[in-house]
């Protein structure tokens, strides 16, 4: 296997290490800890009173708008990374190119700003 693929195998193994660590802790705990689940104990916590209504309730639409904006900006950020690593070679051409790109990006942010999407009410 090439050096490159081995690096990624190490990555997979580290993910496995996390699973093993958590599994070991929880497995060890399950040998020691008590199990006395009374009906009252396994009700959802709602400050002591009985829970009311649906738990998976609807929530503020703001979060959805922010998530959309995040997807937009995160994808843009992916394009900036390779450019940043090679800027020395691109020189002035790369600089102008990215200035236009960031200008359009900033325009999107400015549009959302003026539309009042960034305001939290």
């Amino acid at each position: 296997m090439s050096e490159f693929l081995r690096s990624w195998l190490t990555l997979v193994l580290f993910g496995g290490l996390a699973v093993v660590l958590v599994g070991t802790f929880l497995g060890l705990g399950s040998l020691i800890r008590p199990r006395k689940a009374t009906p009252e104990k396994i009700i959802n916590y709602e400050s002591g009173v009985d829970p009311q209504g649906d738990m998976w309730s609807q929530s503020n639409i703001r979060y959805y708008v922010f998530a959309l904006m995040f997807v937009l900006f995160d994808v843009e950020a992916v394009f900036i990374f390779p450019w940043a690593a090679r800027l020395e070679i691109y020189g002035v051409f790369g600089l102008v190119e990215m200035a236009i790109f960031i200008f359009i990006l900033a325009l999107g942010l400015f549009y959302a700003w003026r539309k009042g999407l960034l305001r939290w009410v």
Partner: protein
Amino acid sequence: MSVVLADLAYWQETTIRLVVGLIAVLLPAGTLVYLFLFKMMSFMQSRLGPMEAGPYGSLQLLAEVGKFLQKEDIVPQAADRLIFKLAPFVVLISTFLLILVIPAGPDLWFIDVDTGIFLGLAVSSISVIGILMAGWASSSKYSLLGALRATGQLIAYELPMVLAVVGVIIQAGTLNVQEIVMAQATGEIFGFGGIGNPYVITQFVGFLIFLIAVQAELTQPPFDMPVAESELVTGYLTEYSGLRFLMFFIGEFATAAIFSALAATLFLGGWYVPGLEATDNLFNVIGPIILLGKMLLVAFFIFWFRFTYPRFREDQLQQLAWKVLIPLSLVNIVITGVLKVVF
């Protein structure tokens, strides 16, 4: 290839890496909890903190783990059991993948790939999924609100963090973390190369944005809306008890340690100190200690802010990210790019 590990087979090397990785996640996390959360916080509040277990309470953490092991594991009846149990795994996987990208010496690294820092930033956001899983599966109003707040906050502050790193990449001209450290060690500030070029000097704005974003990514005060005790109990952790709670706790502080190490690597020169050749074999011995020292320095600031400032409101928090930090980091990228091309 490594001097120490040169004649080992891949599986032997990897076994060593896995053991070191386990230590590198747990030990700094424990150090931060004891040194800062227990002791520094206590001293700042004119109390002593834990004193009973071991000298100056230094074995308190072991006592805590022993206590958590005996705690009953409560899964709420209404919860989505599978997702509820998977969530801590996802959070810890994110932490363990994040440590991979940090080198501790010229030959001491977990993986040495050319996409290094990009990989680190990518895997650091996996924890958002774990938090959302935890909050959603708990089937509790507090948990759901906490998880949504956490998600909104983490994705908002991931952008300034990612964009702040771009400034460093422009200066170093590479995504490989090891080469970023080398570029700082051998760099010059306008022709003066006496101390190399730690990017905290030339990328000071980027460093500040990165620190603020890291603070928010860790959901530490003043950015602790997702776990705001006075309104949401503990946010997405409300229904978690015993060991599963401990897993999230370990994840949080291990990530705090790793983000501090990442900030130290990107901005403070990593395992390098001025005065020696960057390729000196001595760094394979003292590198980890230097990195630990720099990590503790960054973590000190993070925890100092944590204990000092009151909590932001949700709208202030989102506005700081979208209206201040993101435009600022975009400007930072442009200015850094112009300076890089001109000089």
